[in-house]
């Protein structure tokens, strides 16, 4: 049976096609302001990638902030459940899962079957989400993609006082004026952001293996900082972490079909 998972996130809408527990197609689109259109684009891209027609699809699971605009969905899958399912799929030893997306951060404690035991969420505040790094990249005038890799070149520990993304922008500008190296500022930004995610993860307890999904998982600077602050040697990240929640939604749809 073929199922589809669609994750309509704040920034990107991701779709995966799953056949007999294997991912056979992926598609993504910028969410923008017309969520229904973004879902359509992303869904079609994934079908094309899998080489199938819409009529081949058994069930569709929808998740993410914009899940109400996924008209195609047969099942609405709560984000926490989706990330738990996905982590268990990729890494059966996963017990702690964190999902850091553009506008939200989450931490979930799961059992060996991918069942949710406990969770914590940070939403509606940019300080604890990918949007923070994005806003800082603008202040630093650095391409978002370069922000993470820069961090690895720095070994400085500069504390950031501002918590709010808006106030942190001024602090970053102040650091630039004080001739602080951009890589050191970038590290300060990532360390600050990671400390907030770590605090959230600690509220549900750190149990191995720790898995990260969500687009921020592609940011090596953030991952490095997260590992150091969690005091763990290995952080398990799937190949395409941004698709994590969509994979979870497709798996839940398969179960509930």
């Amino acid at each position, binding site marked *: 049976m073929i199922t589809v998972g669609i994750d309509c996130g704040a920034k990107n809408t991701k779709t995966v096609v799953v056949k007999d527990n294997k991912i056979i197609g992926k598609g993504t689109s910028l969410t923008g*302001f017309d969520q229904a259109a973004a879902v359509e684009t992303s869904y079609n891209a994934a079908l094309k990638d899998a080489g199938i027609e819409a009529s081949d699809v058994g069930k569709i699971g929808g998740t993410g902030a914009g899940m109400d605009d996924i008209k195609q969905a047969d099942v609405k899958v709560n984000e926490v459940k989706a990330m738990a399912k996905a982590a268990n799929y990729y890494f059966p030893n996963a017990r702690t899962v964190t999902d850091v997306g553009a506008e939200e951060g989450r931490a979930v404690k799961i059992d060996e079957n991918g069942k949710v035991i406990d969770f914590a969420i940070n939403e509606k505040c940019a300080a604890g989400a990918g*949007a923070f790094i994005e806003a800082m990249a603008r202040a630093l005038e650095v391409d978002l993609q370069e922000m993470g890799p820069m961090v690895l070149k720095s070994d400085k520990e500069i504390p950031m006082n501002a918590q*709010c*993304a808006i*106030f942190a922008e001024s602090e970053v500008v102040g650091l630039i004026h004080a001739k602080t190296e951009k890589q050191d500022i970038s590290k300060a930004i990532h360390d600050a952001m990671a400390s907030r995610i770590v605090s959230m993860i600690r509220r549900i307890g750190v149990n191995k293996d720790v898995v990260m999904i969500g687009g921020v998982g592609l940011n090596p600077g953030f991952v490095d900082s997260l590992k150091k602050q969690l005091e763990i040697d290995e952080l398990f990240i799937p190949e395409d972490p941004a698709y994590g929640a969509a994979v979870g939604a497709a798996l839940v749809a398969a179960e509930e079909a």
Partner: protein
Amino acid sequence: MAEEVKENDEKQEFWRWTESNWKNPDLKWEDAKIITAGIDVGSVSSQAVICADGEIFAYSNMRTGSDSPESAKNALNYALEGTNMPESRIDYCIGTGYGRVNVPMADRSITEIACHARGANFIYGNEVRTVLDVGGQDCKAIRCDEKGKVINFLMNDKCAAGTGRGMEVFADLLSVPIVDVGERSFKIKEEPTPVSSTCVVYAKTEATGLLRKGWEVNEVLAAYCAAMAERIYSLIERIGIEKEFAITGGMAKNVGVIDRLMKIIKMDPMKTKWDTQIAGAVGAGLFGYTLVQKGKGRK
């Protein structure tokens, strides 16, 4: 003249107020027993107030420069200008505000919370029970008694929502000079739904979406002013609102937010002949007077 908001680093410059100083023509400082000074160094503006036996003798209101000690000195010199009073005549000086620990001539510092309550009690009269101060980077709500003593307070300087900065970000996004925001927010056919995101970063995204949907700039301004009013209300609710209600700080000048806020609270804000921006410095000056009287004001 309203200036262009865009492409200017000093966005705070757009608050429509001019630097000023004043002295009380009916007071002879030479006759006073105790002269005290209060200096409030804020993130945007700095004020110095000279008190003669617990009455306001002179004050100044200036922009804060990049250097706090320098701003404090400038404010004090400007307050003393034309009074013939030498700085050495000041018996006791108290620093307050964001930069209070960087006031070189201060004998001690006191938090802006305590000073604002005491100052509001003086400039609005002792009926004032709730003081709201929305500054460039914070929002303070204080409940006080008839003596101007703080009873309950909160201060939010962590999050930009509900501060002057949040409004500046919007003025910038919509290319509207900040001084025009209030009035323009009423040039609408119908009061829109307030912007739903609290976080300024997300509210910006939301506003961009509204513009794409075809909303007019004034409608978006109205939606944000309304959101700001709700946000400020939710903060003061925590300490409880008791009559009479006074508003100080830069946001007091934004009718778009204040009128909407007062509609929620269902009260009229108190009025005063004094410049509301000097409240903190007045409180500092008066605390100095009390401390000297009690024999605690020794250097």
